[in-house]
Protein backbone atom coordinates (compact mmCIF):
# COMPACT_ATOMS: atom_id res chain seq x y z
CA UNK A 1 0.00 0.00 0.00
CA UNK A 2 3.02 2.28 0.39
CA UNK A 3 3.23 2.75 -3.37
CA UNK A 4 -0.30 4.06 -3.55
CA UNK A 5 -0.70 7.71 -4.36
CA UNK A 6 -1.66 9.90 -1.41
CA UNK A 7 -5.15 10.43 -2.66
CA UNK A 8 -5.83 6.68 -2.58
CA UNK A 9 -4.43 6.36 0.94
CA UNK A 10 -6.50 9.28 2.06
CA UNK A 11 -9.51 7.73 0.43
CA UNK A 12 -9.22 4.64 2.62
CA UNK A 13 -8.82 6.88 5.65
CA UNK A 14 -11.92 8.72 4.45
CA UNK A 15 -13.81 5.42 4.22
CA UNK A 16 -12.74 4.42 7.73
CA UNK A 17 -13.70 7.84 8.98
CA UNK A 18 -17.14 7.56 7.40
CA UNK A 19 -17.57 4.12 8.96
CA UNK A 20 -16.47 5.35 12.40
CA UNK A 21 -13.57 2.89 12.46
CA UNK A 22 -10.81 5.34 13.28
CA UNK A 23 -9.38 4.81 16.74
CA UNK A 24 -9.62 7.48 19.39
CA UNK A 25 -5.91 8.27 19.18
CA UNK A 26 -6.10 8.98 15.44
CA UNK A 27 -9.44 10.71 15.30
CA UNK A 28 -8.07 14.18 16.05
CA UNK A 29 -5.69 14.04 13.08
CA UNK A 30 -8.51 12.89 10.79
CA UNK A 31 -10.77 15.60 12.09
CA UNK A 32 -8.12 18.24 11.48
CA UNK A 33 -7.85 17.07 7.87
CA UNK A 34 -11.58 17.35 7.54
CA UNK A 35 -11.45 20.92 8.78
CA UNK A 36 -8.62 21.95 6.50
CA UNK A 37 -8.59 19.77 3.40
CA UNK A 38 -11.52 20.20 0.98
CA UNK A 39 -10.42 17.21 -1.09
CA UNK A 40 -10.49 14.96 1.98
CA UNK A 41 -13.88 16.40 2.94
CA UNK A 42 -15.16 15.44 -0.50
CA UNK A 43 -13.78 11.92 -0.13
CA UNK A 44 -15.49 11.47 3.23
CA UNK A 45 -18.74 12.80 1.79
CA UNK A 46 -18.45 10.42 -1.16
CA UNK A 47 -18.10 7.46 1.21
CA UNK A 48 -20.94 8.66 3.39
CA UNK A 49 -23.11 8.87 0.29
CA UNK A 50 -22.09 5.42 -0.91
CA UNK A 51 -22.73 3.86 2.47
CA UNK A 52 -25.90 5.76 3.39
CA UNK A 53 -27.71 3.74 0.79
CA UNK A 54 -27.36 0.79 3.15
CA UNK A 55 -29.52 2.79 5.56
CA UNK A 56 -32.04 3.46 2.82
CA UNK A 57 -32.61 -0.26 2.42
CA UNK A 58 -33.93 -0.63 5.97
CA UNK A 59 -37.66 -1.02 6.52
CA UNK A 60 -39.08 2.32 7.84
CA UNK A 61 -40.30 2.39 11.46
CA UNK A 62 -42.81 5.05 12.51
CA UNK A 63 -41.70 6.90 15.65
CA UNK A 64 -44.25 7.48 18.40
CA UNK A 65 -45.97 10.91 18.36
CA UNK A 66 -44.35 11.85 21.68
CA UNK A 67 -40.95 12.06 19.96
CA UNK A 68 -42.22 14.73 17.61
CA UNK A 69 -43.79 16.73 20.41
CA UNK A 70 -40.61 16.70 22.44
CA UNK A 71 -38.55 17.58 19.40
CA UNK A 72 -40.73 20.57 18.60
CA UNK A 73 -40.42 21.78 22.17
CA UNK A 74 -36.64 21.51 21.86
CA UNK A 75 -36.48 23.66 18.74
CA UNK A 76 -39.13 26.25 19.58
CA UNK A 77 -38.06 29.86 19.20
CA UNK A 78 -36.47 31.32 22.28
CA UNK A 79 -33.67 28.81 22.34
CA UNK A 80 -31.39 31.76 22.85
CA UNK A 81 -32.62 31.65 26.45
CA UNK A 82 -30.41 28.70 27.22
CA UNK A 83 -31.70 26.38 29.87
CA UNK A 84 -35.38 27.01 29.43
CA UNK A 85 -35.96 24.37 26.84
CA UNK A 86 -34.02 21.82 28.78
CA UNK A 87 -36.49 22.42 31.58
CA UNK A 88 -39.34 21.99 29.16
CA UNK A 89 -37.97 18.54 28.49
CA UNK A 90 -39.39 17.77 31.92
CA UNK A 91 -42.62 16.98 30.20
CA UNK A 92 -41.07 13.93 28.64
CA UNK A 93 -43.12 11.13 30.06
CA UNK A 94 -45.30 13.51 31.95
CA UNK A 95 -47.10 14.17 28.67
CA UNK A 96 -48.41 10.63 28.69
CA UNK A 97 -49.85 11.08 32.15
CA UNK A 98 -51.45 14.27 31.01
CA UNK A 99 -53.44 12.49 28.33
CA UNK A 100 -54.66 10.01 30.88
CA UNK A 101 -55.74 12.84 33.11
CA UNK A 102 -57.90 14.11 30.22
CA UNK A 103 -57.65 17.67 31.31
CA UNK A 104 -54.03 18.18 30.57
CA UNK A 105 -52.59 21.04 32.44
CA UNK A 106 -48.91 21.00 31.93
CA UNK A 107 -47.56 24.29 32.91
CA UNK A 108 -44.06 25.40 33.39
CA UNK A 109 -43.98 29.07 34.22
CA UNK A 110 -40.34 29.75 33.71
CA UNK A 111 -38.60 32.76 35.08
CA UNK A 112 -35.40 33.58 33.32
CA UNK A 113 -32.22 32.79 35.16
CA UNK A 114 -30.44 35.72 36.77
CA UNK A 115 -27.64 36.31 34.24
CA UNK A 116 -30.17 37.13 31.53
CA UNK A 117 -30.94 40.85 31.15
CA UNK A 118 -33.80 41.82 33.43
CA UNK A 119 -35.81 43.62 30.76
CA UNK A 120 -36.79 40.23 29.37
CA UNK A 121 -40.18 39.24 30.67
CA UNK A 122 -40.79 35.65 31.62
CA UNK A 123 -41.86 32.98 29.19
CA UNK A 124 -44.75 30.71 30.04
CA UNK A 125 -45.26 27.42 28.33
CA UNK A 126 -48.26 25.14 28.34
CA UNK A 127 -49.81 22.41 26.28
CA UNK A 128 -53.38 22.41 25.06
CA UNK A 129 -54.70 18.88 24.63
CA UNK A 130 -58.19 17.93 23.54
CA UNK A 131 -60.08 15.57 25.85
CA UNK A 132 -60.04 12.96 23.10
CA UNK A 133 -56.29 13.37 22.69
CA UNK A 134 -56.66 13.99 18.95
CA UNK A 135 -55.46 17.58 19.06
CA UNK A 136 -52.40 19.05 20.73
CA UNK A 137 -50.76 22.41 20.70
CA UNK A 138 -47.68 23.59 22.51
CA UNK A 139 -48.23 27.23 23.50
CA UNK A 140 -45.69 29.75 24.68
CA UNK A 141 -46.62 33.15 26.08
CA UNK A 142 -43.77 35.59 25.74
CA UNK A 143 -44.52 38.51 28.04
CA UNK A 144 -41.41 40.29 26.84
CA UNK A 145 -42.57 40.53 23.25
CA UNK A 146 -46.27 40.28 24.17
CA UNK A 147 -46.71 37.40 21.78
CA UNK A 148 -48.32 34.00 21.84
CA UNK A 149 -46.50 31.28 19.90
CA UNK A 150 -48.29 28.07 19.13
CA UNK A 151 -47.16 24.90 17.45
CA UNK A 152 -49.47 22.13 16.43
CA UNK A 153 -48.13 18.72 17.38
CA UNK A 154 -51.21 16.64 16.66
CA UNK A 155 -54.47 17.10 14.76
CA UNK A 156 -55.57 19.90 12.48
CA UNK A 157 -58.60 21.98 11.59
CA UNK A 158 -61.20 19.99 9.63
CA UNK A 159 -61.19 20.40 5.85
CA UNK A 160 -62.36 23.87 4.87
CA UNK A 161 -62.06 25.24 8.41
CA UNK A 162 -59.28 27.17 10.16
CA UNK A 163 -57.99 27.43 13.71
CA UNK A 164 -58.58 30.44 15.90
CA UNK A 165 -56.73 31.27 19.10
CA UNK A 166 -58.57 32.68 22.11
CA UNK A 167 -57.55 34.02 25.50
CA UNK A 168 -59.11 35.52 28.58
CA UNK A 169 -58.34 36.55 32.13
CA UNK A 170 -60.17 35.33 35.24
CA UNK A 171 -63.96 35.67 34.91
CA UNK A 172 -63.72 37.37 31.52
CA UNK A 173 -65.19 36.24 28.19
CA UNK A 174 -62.83 34.73 25.61
CA UNK A 175 -61.34 37.24 23.24
CA UNK A 176 -59.84 36.40 19.86
CA UNK A 177 -56.05 36.53 19.84
CA UNK A 178 -55.95 35.83 16.13
CA UNK A 179 -56.55 33.47 13.26
CA UNK A 180 -54.38 30.48 12.46
CA UNK A 181 -55.34 29.76 8.87
CA UNK A 182 -52.56 27.30 8.02
CA UNK A 183 -49.12 26.05 8.93
CA UNK A 184 -47.91 24.06 11.88
CA UNK A 185 -47.12 27.11 13.95
CA UNK A 186 -48.27 30.65 14.43
CA UNK A 187 -46.98 33.75 16.17
CA UNK A 188 -49.64 36.21 17.28
CA UNK A 189 -49.32 39.55 19.04
CA UNK A 190 -51.40 39.63 22.20
CA UNK A 191 -54.34 42.06 22.15
CA UNK A 192 -54.21 44.93 24.61
CA UNK A 193 -56.80 43.39 26.98
CA UNK A 194 -54.92 40.13 27.10
CA UNK A 195 -51.61 41.82 27.81
CA UNK A 196 -53.21 43.35 30.86
CA UNK A 197 -54.30 40.01 32.31
CA UNK A 198 -52.66 39.38 35.64
CA UNK A 199 -53.01 36.09 37.45
CA UNK A 200 -54.52 33.20 35.53
CA UNK A 201 -54.40 33.55 31.74
CA UNK A 202 -56.53 31.04 29.86
CA UNK A 203 -55.62 30.07 26.30
CA UNK A 204 -57.79 28.08 23.94
CA UNK A 205 -58.01 26.94 20.33
CA UNK A 206 -61.17 26.37 18.32
CA UNK A 207 -61.94 25.48 14.72
CA UNK A 208 -63.87 28.10 12.77
CA UNK A 209 -64.95 29.01 9.26
CA UNK A 210 -62.33 30.71 7.05
CA UNK A 211 -62.19 34.32 8.20
CA UNK A 212 -62.75 33.37 11.81
CA UNK A 213 -65.73 33.06 14.11
CA UNK A 214 -68.63 35.25 12.92
CA UNK A 215 -69.84 35.79 16.49
CA UNK A 216 -66.72 37.12 18.19
CA UNK A 217 -66.75 34.10 20.48
CA UNK A 218 -65.75 30.53 19.69
CA UNK A 219 -68.48 29.13 17.40
CA UNK A 220 -66.99 25.78 16.37
CA UNK A 221 -65.47 22.97 18.37
CA UNK A 222 -63.18 24.18 21.12
CA UNK A 223 -60.32 21.70 21.07
CA UNK A 224 -59.15 22.59 24.52
CA UNK A 225 -58.03 25.30 26.85
CA UNK A 226 -55.27 25.64 29.37
CA UNK A 227 -54.88 27.88 32.38
CA UNK A 228 -51.55 29.51 32.97
CA UNK A 229 -51.34 30.71 36.56
CA UNK A 230 -49.09 33.39 37.91
CA UNK A 231 -48.82 35.52 34.77
CA UNK A 232 -47.30 38.84 35.68
CA UNK A 233 -47.80 42.04 33.80
CA UNK A 234 -44.63 43.90 32.87
CA UNK A 235 -43.78 47.14 34.63
Amino acid at each position, binding site marked *: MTDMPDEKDNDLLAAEYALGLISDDQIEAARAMLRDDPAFARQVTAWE*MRLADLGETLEP*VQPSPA*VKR*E*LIARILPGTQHAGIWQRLALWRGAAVLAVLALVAVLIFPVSLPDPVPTDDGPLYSAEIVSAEGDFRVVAVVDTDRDEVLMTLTEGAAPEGRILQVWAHGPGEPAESVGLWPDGN*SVRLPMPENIRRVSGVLTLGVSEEPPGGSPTGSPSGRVFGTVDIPGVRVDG
Partner: protein
Amino acid sequence: MSSHEELEDLLARAGLGDRDAFIGLYDATSAKLLAVCLRVLKNRSSAEDAMQDAYVKIWNNADRYAVTGHSPMTWLITIARNTAIDRLRARRRTEPLDTHSERIAADTATPEQSAIAGSEARRVMACLDELEEDRGAAIRGAYLDGKTYKDLAEQFDVPLNTMRTWLRRGLIALRECMSR
Protein backbone atom coordinates in the same frame (compact mmCIF):
# COMPACT_ATOMS: atom_id res chain seq x y z
CA MET B 1 -41.00 9.15 0.31
CA SER B 2 -40.63 12.71 -0.84
CA SER B 3 -38.53 13.49 -3.85
CA HIS B 4 -34.95 14.64 -3.68
CA GLU B 5 -36.05 18.15 -4.73
CA GLU B 6 -38.72 18.37 -2.04
CA LEU B 7 -36.26 17.35 0.65
CA GLU B 8 -33.68 19.82 -0.70
CA ASP B 9 -36.28 22.56 -0.47
CA LEU B 10 -37.37 21.62 3.06
CA LEU B 11 -33.76 21.45 4.24
CA ALA B 12 -32.91 24.79 2.67
CA ARG B 13 -35.88 26.42 4.38
CA ALA B 14 -35.09 24.73 7.69
CA GLY B 15 -31.59 26.15 7.34
CA LEU B 16 -33.15 29.61 7.32
CA GLY B 17 -35.00 28.84 10.53
CA ASP B 18 -38.35 27.82 9.03
CA ARG B 19 -39.82 25.46 11.62
CA ASP B 20 -42.74 24.42 9.43
CA ALA B 21 -40.28 23.23 6.81
CA PHE B 22 -38.33 21.39 9.48
CA ILE B 23 -41.49 19.67 10.72
CA GLY B 24 -42.28 18.72 7.12
CA LEU B 25 -38.79 17.28 6.83
CA TYR B 26 -39.33 15.31 10.03
CA ASP B 27 -42.64 13.92 8.79
CA ALA B 28 -41.08 12.88 5.50
CA THR B 29 -37.94 11.26 6.88
CA SER B 30 -38.33 10.22 10.53
CA ALA B 31 -39.48 6.65 9.84
CA LYS B 32 -36.32 6.10 7.80
CA LEU B 33 -34.05 7.67 10.40
CA LEU B 34 -35.68 5.69 13.20
CA ALA B 35 -35.00 2.50 11.25
CA VAL B 36 -31.32 3.47 11.01
CA CYS B 37 -31.09 4.25 14.75
CA LEU B 38 -33.00 1.12 15.68
CA ARG B 39 -30.66 -1.05 13.64
CA VAL B 40 -27.67 0.37 15.54
CA LEU B 41 -29.19 0.44 19.03
CA LYS B 42 -31.61 -2.54 18.89
CA ASN B 43 -33.82 -0.82 21.46
CA ARG B 44 -36.83 1.27 20.57
CA SER B 45 -36.62 3.81 23.34
CA SER B 46 -32.86 4.46 22.92
CA ALA B 47 -33.39 4.62 19.17
CA GLU B 48 -36.13 7.23 19.52
CA ASP B 49 -33.94 9.29 21.86
CA ALA B 50 -31.03 9.09 19.44
CA MET B 51 -33.28 10.01 16.53
CA GLN B 52 -34.60 13.02 18.41
CA ASP B 53 -31.03 14.14 19.17
CA ALA B 54 -30.20 13.66 15.50
CA TYR B 55 -33.04 15.97 14.45
CA VAL B 56 -31.88 18.63 16.89
CA LYS B 57 -28.45 18.42 15.21
CA ILE B 58 -30.13 18.54 11.82
CA TRP B 59 -32.04 21.66 12.86
CA ASN B 60 -28.90 23.29 14.24
CA ASN B 61 -26.78 22.41 11.20
CA ALA B 62 -29.34 22.61 8.40
CA ASP B 63 -27.69 25.79 7.13
CA ARG B 64 -24.47 23.81 6.69
CA TYR B 65 -26.02 21.00 4.71
CA ALA B 66 -25.22 22.50 1.32
CA VAL B 67 -21.47 22.79 1.93
CA THR B 68 -21.04 19.10 2.66
CA GLY B 69 -21.96 18.13 -0.90
CA HIS B 70 -24.40 15.46 0.23
CA SER B 71 -27.79 14.56 -1.15
CA PRO B 72 -30.46 15.32 1.48
CA MET B 73 -31.30 11.74 2.43
CA THR B 74 -27.68 10.64 2.72
CA TRP B 75 -26.90 13.64 4.91
CA LEU B 76 -29.83 12.89 7.22
CA ILE B 77 -29.00 9.19 7.41
CA THR B 78 -25.34 9.95 8.12
CA ILE B 79 -26.21 12.23 11.02
CA ALA B 80 -28.76 9.78 12.44
CA ARG B 81 -26.36 6.87 12.14
CA ASN B 82 -23.47 8.76 13.75
CA THR B 83 -25.70 9.95 16.58
CA ALA B 84 -26.93 6.43 17.25
CA ILE B 85 -23.39 5.06 17.20
CA ASP B 86 -22.23 7.74 19.63
CA ARG B 87 -24.95 6.56 21.98
CA LEU B 88 -23.96 2.91 21.43
CA ARG B 89 -20.35 3.67 22.22
CA ALA B 90 -21.03 6.19 24.95
CA ARG B 91 -19.40 3.96 27.53
CA ARG B 92 -16.23 3.24 25.61
CA ARG B 93 -15.67 6.24 23.39
CA THR B 94 -15.40 9.81 24.51
CA GLU B 95 -14.92 11.36 21.10
CA PRO B 96 -18.23 12.00 19.34
CA LEU B 97 -18.48 11.21 15.65
CA ASP B 98 -18.80 13.97 13.12
CA THR B 99 -21.99 15.95 12.73
CA HIS B 100 -20.59 18.13 9.95
CA SER B 101 -20.65 21.21 12.15
CA GLU B 102 -16.94 21.87 11.81
CA ARG B 103 -16.29 20.36 8.43
CA ILE B 104 -14.75 22.45 5.67
CA ALA B 105 -16.77 22.88 2.49
CA ALA B 106 -16.13 19.91 0.26
CA ASP B 107 -14.50 20.49 -3.10
CA THR B 108 -17.28 21.69 -5.28
CA ALA B 109 -18.82 18.83 -7.16
CA THR B 110 -20.21 19.63 -10.58
CA PRO B 111 -23.83 18.58 -11.17
CA GLU B 112 -22.39 15.81 -13.31
CA GLN B 113 -20.23 14.54 -10.45
CA SER B 114 -23.21 14.70 -8.13
CA ALA B 115 -25.23 12.64 -10.54
CA ILE B 116 -22.43 10.09 -10.71
CA ALA B 117 -22.25 10.00 -6.91
CA GLY B 118 -26.00 9.44 -6.78
CA SER B 119 -26.00 6.55 -9.20
CA GLU B 120 -22.91 5.13 -7.47
CA ALA B 121 -24.79 5.10 -4.21
CA ARG B 122 -27.57 3.00 -5.65
CA ARG B 123 -25.06 0.35 -6.54
CA VAL B 124 -23.74 -0.23 -3.05
CA MET B 125 -25.97 -3.21 -2.39
CA ALA B 126 -25.10 -4.97 -5.62
CA CYS B 127 -21.41 -4.29 -5.09
CA LEU B 128 -21.41 -5.52 -1.51
CA ASP B 129 -22.95 -8.72 -2.76
CA GLU B 130 -20.06 -9.10 -5.21
CA LEU B 131 -17.49 -9.03 -2.40
CA GLU B 132 -16.35 -12.11 -0.60
CA GLU B 133 -19.14 -12.86 1.82
CA ASP B 134 -17.26 -12.08 5.02
CA ARG B 135 -15.94 -8.78 3.71
CA GLY B 136 -19.37 -7.63 2.65
CA ALA B 137 -20.76 -8.67 6.01
CA ALA B 138 -17.97 -6.82 7.82
CA ILE B 139 -18.69 -3.58 5.95
CA ARG B 140 -22.41 -3.91 6.63
CA GLY B 141 -21.67 -4.66 10.30
CA ALA B 142 -19.47 -1.58 10.59
CA TYR B 143 -21.97 0.69 8.90
CA LEU B 144 -25.35 -0.59 10.01
CA ASP B 145 -24.51 -1.99 13.43
CA GLY B 146 -21.71 0.41 14.33
CA LYS B 147 -19.19 -2.37 14.92
CA THR B 148 -15.56 -1.50 15.55
CA TYR B 149 -12.55 -3.39 14.18
CA LYS B 150 -12.35 -5.12 17.55
CA ASP B 151 -16.03 -6.18 17.45
CA LEU B 152 -15.63 -7.47 13.91
CA ALA B 153 -12.42 -9.36 14.71
CA GLU B 154 -14.28 -11.12 17.53
CA GLN B 155 -17.32 -11.80 15.38
CA PHE B 156 -15.27 -13.39 12.58
CA ASP B 157 -12.75 -14.86 15.00
CA VAL B 158 -9.68 -13.43 13.28
CA PRO B 159 -6.83 -11.27 14.63
CA LEU B 160 -7.45 -7.53 14.69
CA ASN B 161 -4.89 -6.79 11.97
CA THR B 162 -6.36 -9.44 9.71
CA MET B 163 -9.76 -7.84 10.16
CA ARG B 164 -8.34 -4.43 9.31
CA THR B 165 -6.73 -5.80 6.14
CA TRP B 166 -9.92 -7.61 5.11
CA LEU B 167 -12.07 -4.61 5.58
CA ARG B 168 -9.71 -2.26 3.76
CA ARG B 169 -9.49 -4.66 0.82
CA GLY B 170 -13.24 -4.90 0.89
CA LEU B 171 -13.51 -1.12 0.76
CA ILE B 172 -11.09 -0.88 -2.17
CA ALA B 173 -13.06 -3.55 -4.05
CA LEU B 174 -16.29 -1.78 -3.18
CA ARG B 175 -15.01 1.51 -4.52
CA GLU B 176 -13.82 -0.11 -7.72
CA CYS B 177 -17.11 -1.90 -8.22
CA MET B 178 -19.10 1.27 -7.59
CA SER B 179 -17.09 3.37 -10.03
CA ARG B 180 -17.49 0.86 -12.87
